[in-house]
């Protein structure tokens, strides 16, 4: 069974700074890592392969040339192959343009039985690309998978995490699933994996390598999302200090919250 895991390189911080001039993320001086949720996706693919006793795991990412680093990380964990789609024409693509591009890569790969993604990337936090790929390829999707109960070449049965519990869903394969962190504990890169990763040179595709690729669908111009303005909101703390002896201060505080009808 060939499993494709879609991964993304993100900045290693939750405190993303935006350039007020261009509205884009400031990446300079910030370490880049494999999107943490994607580690669970890679781990689950490796576990499925191990459970089935055979198969192949390929990771695919779209990004600048330095995104090869996260492919190497995945190779260190044990995946078989990695593909990077990298092209200047793709710069500025939104989630839809990204999903379109990745679906074209998946069409080129062809023989996959399953696609796994992390539930979302920690930079954009949209959780849109997975479902959009399902739409592009007309595949069934189970999002927020917390457990795969059973899997065969043709069928998957999985638990989908919900706010008030979980659903058990079945789907024919091929299908796409996105996974939550409850699903597993990602393995560390092994020594032999790291040694292979050090020498590993992933396949790099440009849009010219993708048959029938429509350039008008991607990049800043091809993206339906238009960003008019981005800014980091100013945080304002309006606290009021209630001074005085403790007993008096407590009484004053009580009066205030009574006035505000909190009690």
């Amino acid at each position: 069974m060939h499993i494709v895991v879609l991964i993304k390189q993100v900045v290693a911080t939750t405190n993303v700074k935006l350039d007020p001039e261009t509205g884009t993320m400031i990446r300079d001086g910030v370490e880049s890592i494999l999107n943490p949720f994607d580690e669970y996706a890679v781990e689950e693919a490796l576990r499925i392969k191990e459970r089935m006793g055979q198969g192949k795991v390929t990771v695919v990412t779209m990004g600048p040339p330095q995104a090869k680093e996260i492919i190497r990380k995945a190779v260190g964990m044990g995946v078989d192959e990695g593909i990077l789609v990298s092209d200047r024409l793709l710069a500025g693509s939104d989630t839809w343009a990204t999903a379109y591009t990745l679906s074209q890569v998946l069409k080129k790969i062809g023989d996959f039985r399953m696609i796994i993604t992390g539930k979302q990337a920690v930079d954009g936090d949209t959780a849109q690309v997975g479902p959009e790929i399902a739409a592009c390829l007309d595949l069934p999707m189970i999002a927020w998978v917390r457990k795969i109960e059973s899997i065969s070449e043709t069928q998957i049965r999985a638990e989908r995490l919900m706010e008030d519990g979980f659903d058990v869903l079945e789907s024919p394969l091929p299908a796409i699933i996105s996974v939550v962190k409850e699903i597993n504990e990602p393995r560390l890169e092994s020594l032999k994996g790291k040694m292979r990763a050090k020498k590993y040179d992933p396949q790099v595709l440009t849009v010219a390598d993708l048959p029938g690729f429509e350039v008008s669908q991607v990049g800043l111009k091809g993206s339906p999302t238009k960003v008019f303005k981005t800014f980091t909101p100013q945080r304002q703390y309006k606290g009021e200090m209630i001074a005085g002896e403790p007993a008096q201060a407590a009484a004053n505080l009580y009066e205030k919250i009574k006035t505000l009808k909190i009690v």
Partner: protein
Amino acid sequence: MNYFLTEEQQMILDTARALAKSKIKPVREKYDEEGIFPWDIVKEMAAADLMGLYIPEQYGGMGGGVFALCLAVEELSKVCGGISLAMAATALGTFPLLLFGSEEQKAKYLPGIASGKHLAAFALTEANAGSDAGNMATTAVRDGDDYILNGTKQWITNGGEAQIYSVVAMTNKAKGTRGATAFIVEKGTPGFEFGKKENKMGIRASATRELVFNNCRVPAKNILAKEGMGFIVAVNTLNNSRPGVAAQALGIAAGALEEALLYSRQRVQFGQPISSIQAVQHMLANMATEVEAARALVYATARTIDSGEKSFAKISAMSKLFASEVAMRVTTDAVQVMGGYGYMKEYPVEKMMRDAKITQIYEGTSQIQRNEIALQLIKEAAKMK
């Protein structure tokens, strides 16, 4: 200090460090408290390819030699000197095979150890044969193509958990130390049982147990080297394994130093962090200097062994002696720097101090190491004449 590690050695260090931080640190207190064997961590070490570091590549290992083993044991011991022992004691049990095993024995047993599926153990000590190993009472009597083992081995690290045991027994008492023979005995061999499980001061995540041989039949093809060479096997094994204990001691010391240093910068007394107080500074300075000196000696010893140099009994004993004494002093001082908090189980240094103590005792006490060093010194001096 720059030890000019190769890229591969740096990878080993990074892998062990990552594993210690993410897998061992969160559970070390639990294992110390409950005194259970950390099989789940051993599986993680195996998955990270750390269990076969010192085993040649042709048997599924990484071929990194004693130095690779020391690097990994040091990193793991910085976080937990008890859990790291599953690896170090397996190396101790594997050296007899590596050094004296036949091609057939190596091909049969080493791949399982290299993959981390099997642990190994070394069984020399008995109730009345500690430093005086020649006083052992366990016997092996030839019977056709087999030997019949009888007796009890004591304080065997990885006892009960390991699959493969290198056991030294007397085949001819009249010959004294030339009458001992080393055997490979597999767990599950009829007549081979496990006895008392020890309740220890430190290294509580490590299994220490009696091995009981009661008419245990072991095929003659399981002899390591030849009949009568048991003590040669044992001495050479210990010469090779002592840097591993030294690395464990070094790791424990380095871990305690780090904890004390971090704490000293946070703890405020007399209106300042205690790291500003010269009395504390001098303690930290001594601790750091000793740790670095121990590291230099351990690394140099491991590299000497890996270089193929034949004579290393002296430096091997020196590295074990020095690193274990440093571990005891540094962990004791770490508790002192941290004062009352250091003495409490909420902080890891009291455990480090308990774990450090054994490194001065097992695989030859500090006193036995000094005997060995002096013996080698005198031999060298005699040769110079």
